[in-house]
């Protein structure tokens, strides 16, 4: 990740460097570090206020990364595979928090699959990033549930089981923002990341992120080379935040524009074939076909205004529940008296 010169500050006067965290302890070259770089850059470009952000993660190399970006944000490194429930609680306690979740394929597709699905079903507002390397990095390279059929582990074992596609699952569960990208393609990843923050509800980003130590060898389908080979971008992605008014003009029919919850826009420049990310069936179809002809469709897979988010469903007050004063959460004495009276039918 290239840090822009000091002079270069964002709309709240911070430099990209201000969005860094502590030094990474991951293996040099790990895809996760590249994603960290994109997150830092995206947050910087959006001008996120770090104190409003809550970084949530599970357990794994990927789940360690929140320590490496947005050093001035609170962070919750939960237990393995159960971050979604913690994130749900945190959001409901303070709906003003900008929720960010970072997880791994083992964390979300193996042990955490149930919680992942239920978080998506509840449409908890969170930018949920899966750093997908097809293996358990931190425990030294066992297959995860996203390992592709026929991929060979360093140990020599070959995976026979069908991979779980978290993007397809998310779409099926009603998710309104589903994208896939590659740690090695910041040009695509950053605008998608930025766009995700403009979506109200759960946004899922599945980012292929090679594990250079345990899953970057010949025969691995999640290695840099293999990911590059099969990467099939659906479109070229540009993000236009609501606070900027840039005009991009493509020849008619050459691009699509998607407007997001906060007025920001995503401009998708057409590549070989036109892709409509608002067509749910088309999205599922694209993923399914990709499996068959071994092409990894990346880009904005699906987007819709989607259903109400959970805090809307529950009709919460605008202020954070966390900061409501006693008088607003303890009913008056009369209420207790009334209830007691209704229970009090004793004689004499």
């Amino acid at each position, binding site marked *: 990740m290239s840090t822009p010169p000091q002079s270069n500050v964002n709309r709240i006067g911070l430099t990209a460097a201000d969005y860094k965290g502590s030094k990474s302890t991951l293996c040099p070259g790990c895809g996760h570090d590249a994603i960290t770089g994109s997150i830092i850059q995206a947050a910087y470009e959006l001008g996120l206020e770090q*104190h409003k952000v809550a970084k949530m993660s599970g357990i794994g190399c990927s789940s360690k990364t929140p320590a490496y970006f947005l050093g001035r944000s609170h962070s919750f490194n939960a237990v393995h595979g159960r971050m*979604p429930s*913690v994130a749900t609680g945190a*959001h409901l*306690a303070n709906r003003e928090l900008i929720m960010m979740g970072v997880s791994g394929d083992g964390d979300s597709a193996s042990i955490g699959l*149930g919680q992942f699905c239920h978080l998506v079903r509840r449409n908890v507002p969170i930018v949920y990033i899966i750093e997908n390397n097809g293996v358990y990095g931190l425990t030294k390279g066992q297959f995860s549930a996203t390992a592709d059929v026929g991929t060979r582990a360093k140990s020599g074992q070959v995976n026979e089981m069908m991979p779980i596609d978290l993007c397809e699952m998310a779409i099926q569960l009603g998710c309104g923002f589903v994208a896939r990208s590659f740690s090695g393609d910041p040009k695509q990843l950053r605008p998608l990341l930025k766009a995700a923050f403009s979506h109200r509800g759960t946004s899922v980003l599945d980012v292929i992120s090679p594990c250079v130590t345990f899953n970057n060898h010949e025969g691995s389908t999640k290695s840099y080379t293999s990911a590059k080979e099969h990467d099939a971008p659906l479109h070229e992605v540009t993000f236009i935040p609501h606070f900027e008014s840039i005009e991009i003009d493509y020849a008619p029919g050459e691009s699509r524009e998607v407007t997001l919850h906060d007025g920001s826009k995503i401009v998708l420049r057409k590549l070989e074939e036109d892709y409509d990310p608002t067509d749910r069936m088309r999205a599922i179809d694209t993923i399914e076909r990709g499996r068959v002809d071994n092409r990894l469709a990346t880009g904005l897979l699906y987007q819709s205004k989607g259903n109400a988010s959970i805090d809307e469903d529950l009709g919460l007050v605008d202020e954070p529940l966390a900061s409501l004063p006693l008088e607003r959460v303890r009913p008056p004495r009369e209420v207790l008296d009334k209830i007691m009276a209704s229970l009090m039918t*004793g004689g004499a």
Partner: protein
Amino acid sequence: MGLSGVGRRIEPSTPGRALSAIDNRFTIHVATVNGSGSQTANTTLLRALFQMGIPVSGKNLFPSNIAGLPTWFTIRANDQGYVARIKRADLLVALNPETSVADIAAMEPGSVLVVADGLPMPATPPDRTLYKVPFTKLVEPLVADAKLRKLVVNMIYVGVVSWLLGIDPSEVDRALVAQLGRKPKALEMNRAAVQVGIKYAGEHMKRTPFQARRADRTAGKILIDGNQAAALGALFGGVTFLSWYPITPSSSLAEQLEGFLARYRKDPKSGKATYAVIQAEDEISAIGMVLGASWAGARAMTTTSGPGLSLMTEFAGYAYYAEIPAVVWDIQRIGPSTGLPTRTSQADLLSVAFLSHGDTKHVILFPATVQDCYEYGMRAFDLAERLQTPVFVLSDLDIGMNTWMSQPFRYPENPWDRGKVLSASDLERVKKFERYRDVDGDAIPYRTLPGTNHPLAAYFTRGSGHDEAARYTESSEAYPRVMDRLARKFETAKTLVPAPFIEKAQGAEVGLIAFGSTHHAMDETRDRLRTEGTPTSYLLLRAYPFPEEVERFVRGHKRVYVVEQNRDAQMAALLRMEYPELAPRIRSVLHYDGLPIDAESILKGVRAAERPSEVTTR
């Protein structure tokens, strides 16, 4: 906090006589079928007696299915204020063909039996009074619809029983109105049924030797179950977050709380909710949500029972080690695994105390009365936020789902305690913030909430190794430093949790210790022991870790019997761990058949144990 109902006992007029029925001292046993709607009928009888000023308790013994299996309801009326379960029934109403033979055979001499005509019967000795009642025939003229009949027929036995016991008909009617007032048609129908019963009894029976007589023992008292009381406590304690997963016998706590919240916690201006209730996909998720919500500053709780508790194990350790408040109500049922979901016990104690792998110890509250449930419903939050650790409230099915008499609950006099939370302005003042530093010497650190707008506010919460500044570390100095502080924090807890309730007896060599629902059988037990010449002191444990009074009490008695409703003498084990030097004098009286403990069983245990040798009663 006061004594929350504990020990405000009514001095027995004639101590000791509790087993054979006399006026205002009898037990009604109704044997019927699950889903037959006898609940209203039984509640009517219960309330009528209560309204006459007679202390009562009602216990519902129901099966773990929805309809069609045997159910029993026991009403104990006792002017001495003994409201624990009693085995002996004085008046039986038998309506269930599946169990009638056993039900009737269990009745003792002098008892009165009201049996539905045509039920299978054993031979009944002459010293029982037997009445066969043609309920089905009696109900026919009242209702046409067959489904309705099934319900209304119950009111006929209400009429019969009330006449037999001489319960004031006006009180029966008042009780009926209290329940069905809003449904005039149903009210009329049921009134009619009661009349039919009264009339029939008047014509075919004679009053029982034990009668209900007006008294003044219930004036100003309420009737309520523990789960509802706990829900009220949480409501007035300012709960803002509840996540739960349905499980008997805890569901009614969550559901009643949700009901109260929907009714009393909508913002007057916007009409929006000042709370969030989530039905999680399982208990791992339920506790995970609670931790997330507490971490972000909500007053968060969950309710569960055994199997759910087991699923919370990993997160419980996280909360202990990362120091996150949480309130977990465990309404205990009996058994490892699924066990008997509709039977009571106190067998989750050890697993809660050490819930999670690694060196972990949890703060536990033991509500003994419905008033405790109400007050701990508030206090558990104060303790959890003050101590920054999960607080477990160990209730059980008997307290939680059965109906108890109580003083009305008091409105909280003081505000809440939200513990050591630093706001942006606090940070501005103190200039320095380290999440896990013991600044005040009480081993309790300060925390900040996400969203706090100050450069010092942010920190990293993790279940992995961390130092005072919440930095990741694997240092072999930092780890034990943190663990030792957590141990000291547990010492601090001893000074904050509710003190035990103690009743000393002059020169008593024997001390009795109990906790939770067991408490209700203790007055009766001790009165009986006293009349037998064994005065006993009594200590009601109300929290773990044990405040120092507990050690003094044990030290002060030659033999101490810990009475509990589990097989493995779990509370005795905790006491022996805490006080190794006193361990030899700690003995056990155990009861674990899933039915609420009764004085008779405890007496057996203590008597037998006085000939040293640990004894198990059933």
